[in-house]
Structure formats: structure tokens, C-alpha cells
């Protein structure tokens, strides 16, 4: 038998109120072990209050070759941003 432990991606919430952020990856035989390994590897310095692990093969990623069609069309939609609109200085906080 020569099957290696699969790769998992680790997401850690560093404190309540913040989102889980990608911290890195590791190897584990099963989800339970991935969670424990993530705790042992990525939160040794008190970095987290919650962990997600997901097997890397389950992540679907966009292809950078399609970045043009995926992301560039959003670049000229300046009207989505507040600074697009001119207001008199007297109106503060809007």
C-alpha cells in the first residue's frame, strides 16, 4: 500500500468578529486529523479561536487565464464607488 496523506487547506479565525483566513496547508489522513494537525501546526502562538479544514482537491479555483473576462469588466464601473458622486462639502458623513 502506498497512498500518501492528502493535502488540506487550513482557515483560521484569529478572533471572534473576524473572518476565517487562509493560513496554509498540511497533510492528514482524515478530517479529524486535519483539524488536530491544524491546531498543532497553525495555532501554537495563540493565533486562533476557530479552524476550518477542507481537502485541497475540493476547492474549485478560477483560472488566471480567464482573469480578463472575469475581473477586468469590473474595473470601469466607477459608479459603484461612493467617490463617483459629487456632493457639496456641507454634507458631511454620507
Amino acid at each position, binding site marked *: 500500500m502506498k497512498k*500518501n496523506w492528502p*493535502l488540506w487547506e487550513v482557515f483560521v479565525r484569529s478572533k471572534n468578529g473576524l473572518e476565517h483566513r487562509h493560513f*496554509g496547508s498540511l497533510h492528514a489522513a*482524515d478530517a479529524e486529523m486535519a483539524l488536530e494537525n491544524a491546531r498543532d501546526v497553525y495555532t501554537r502562538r495563540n493565533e486562533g479561536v476557530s479552524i476550518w479544514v477542507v481537502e485541497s482537491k475540493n476547492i474549485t479555483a478560477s483560472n488566471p487565464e480567464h482573469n480578463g473576462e472575469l475581473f477586468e469588466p469590473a474595473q470601469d464601473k466607477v459608479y459603484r464607488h461612493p467617490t463617483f458622486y459629487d456632493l457639496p462639502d456641507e454634507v458631511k458623513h454620507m
Partner: protein
Amino acid sequence: MSEEQIKNLEAQFEARIARDEKIEPKDWMPEKYRQTHIRQMSQHAHSEIIGMLPEGNWITRAPSLRRKVALLAKVQDEGGHGLYLYSACETLGISREELYEQLHTGKAKYSSIFNYPTITWADIGAIGWLVDGAAIINQVPLCSTSFGPYARAMVRVCKEESFHQRQGFEIMLKLAEGDPKQKEMAQDALNRWWWPALMMLGPTDDKSVHTAQSMKWKLKRKTNDELRQQFIDQTVPQAELIGLTIPDPDLKWNEEKKGYDFGPIDWDEFWQVVKGHGPCNKQRLNARVSAWENGQWVRDAAMAHAEKQELKSNNKAV
């Protein structure tokens, strides 16, 4: 793709790096960029895990409980750093097992400094102070290297490393201000580790094969000789502070260049150790190989158990 298309892509790629954009794993990259990164990141990872061994040699013999936990945590960190770097490598489509295979068969290199033995407690201080000191000089610029996963791994590594050098220097400090026997132990360790630490920063610029390319890809920000000078200039005053003598009769402050002049480095010794003739090359590699081989049944069992569990839950679901 035609040759011209590739040339074009390469030009765009180099321009992105020149603009300080990061390269991510799925981006198009020249094959040479991929190979160079696999080589450098894996060498770096191997150095971290081989580096666990000389220091691990003193965990059971650390002279106080405080020193024991600090050393244990430090050696463990090195394992963590190896793990981050192997992971960064894996984003380029090579598995950790393949990387281990390269290490175990001697195909991959690791930092030669770990082929020297740790024969006294002071060696643990000297490694933290000098070897980690030299490593930090190398590593800090890598936090802004062009390959995203490498840069991110290095940010984490550098953050964690910050206690390592302090830990080593504190050991030396205690020895230097202690009993004459302790001071002698500290001086002896400095004598043995000084030159290997200087060599660790790599061959002189005229002998270094990768520098130009590495500079362009921000795998290097300074040349080996510049890094060495920086290391010497920052370390000499630290040695003076604790009353230890750098074992180099030619060491002299040069007011003109605002740095120290230093004596010739024995590069023969360096190349001998690189070729496998250092005092501990065989021992280090054997320790890694046997940890891996002895762990095979454990890894297999965990995998077999995971598969059985999955089968069970699938059957339940049906």
C-alpha cells in the same frame, strides 16, 4: 505555443515581477522559474528539518527546565517552518513525498552548516546566535520575494524566528558571564561555529552561479558577499558586548568602508562538506531516512483507517 509567443509571455512575466507584482501558483510562469523555485524552496525546507537534528541533540540534556522548553519550542518551530515551505513548494505541483525522496537519495541539498556536530551546550547558544542570525539576514528579504506562496511562508517564518536568535544569544550571554568553565565553553563554540556561519551565506559572488537570475526574481535582494559583510558587521559588536573573541586574527574595522575586513575563508572545507564529507552528513541523512521509513506503517495505517471510515459513512448514506 510558438517560440515567439513564449518570448512574449516571458517578457510580460518579467515585467510583472519588475513592477513588484506577485506571481501565484496557477499563473503562467517560465519553466525555469518553476524549477528554480522548487529547488530553492525545497532546499530551504530540507534545511529546516535537517536543522532540527543538531539542536534536537540537546533537548534531553538542556541544563534547566526553562532552557529545555525554549529549545523544544524552537526545534518544533523549525519543523513548522519546514512544513510551511514544503506546502509552498507543493503549490507548484510537486508532492512532499517526492521532495523527501530527493532529500533521502541525496539529490537535493540542504544547508551544510547542519553537518557539524553539537558537542557542548554552548553549541546550542552559538547556533541560535550565529546560524539563526545568518539565516535571518537571508530570510527577511525573502518576505517580499516574487512568488506569493514563498513570500507568505517567509512572513510567517520570520515572525516566528524572532525569538530564536534571542534565545541563542541569551544562552551565550549567560555562559559568558558565568563560571570560567562556562565562558570557555562559549568561546570554544564561537571558535567552531564562526567560520561555518560565514560560509553559510554562500560562495563568494564570483563563484556563485545563480545570483543574477535570482536577483531578477527577487529570490535574492543582496549578493552573498554583501550579506556576509552585513552579518559580520552586526555580529562583531555583539561578541564584544559579552566579552567573546571572534576567531579571526585578520578581523579589523575599516573606517573607509564602514565595515570590518576579515580573513580568508577556507572554501575547500565548505565544498568538502557540501559534497558529503562533513562530520555528520551521513548521520543527519540517516536520521531523516529512518524516521521516514519507521513511520511508513503508521502513515499506511492512518490512511487505511480513513478509507474504512469513509466507506462506512458512504454505506450509511445509501
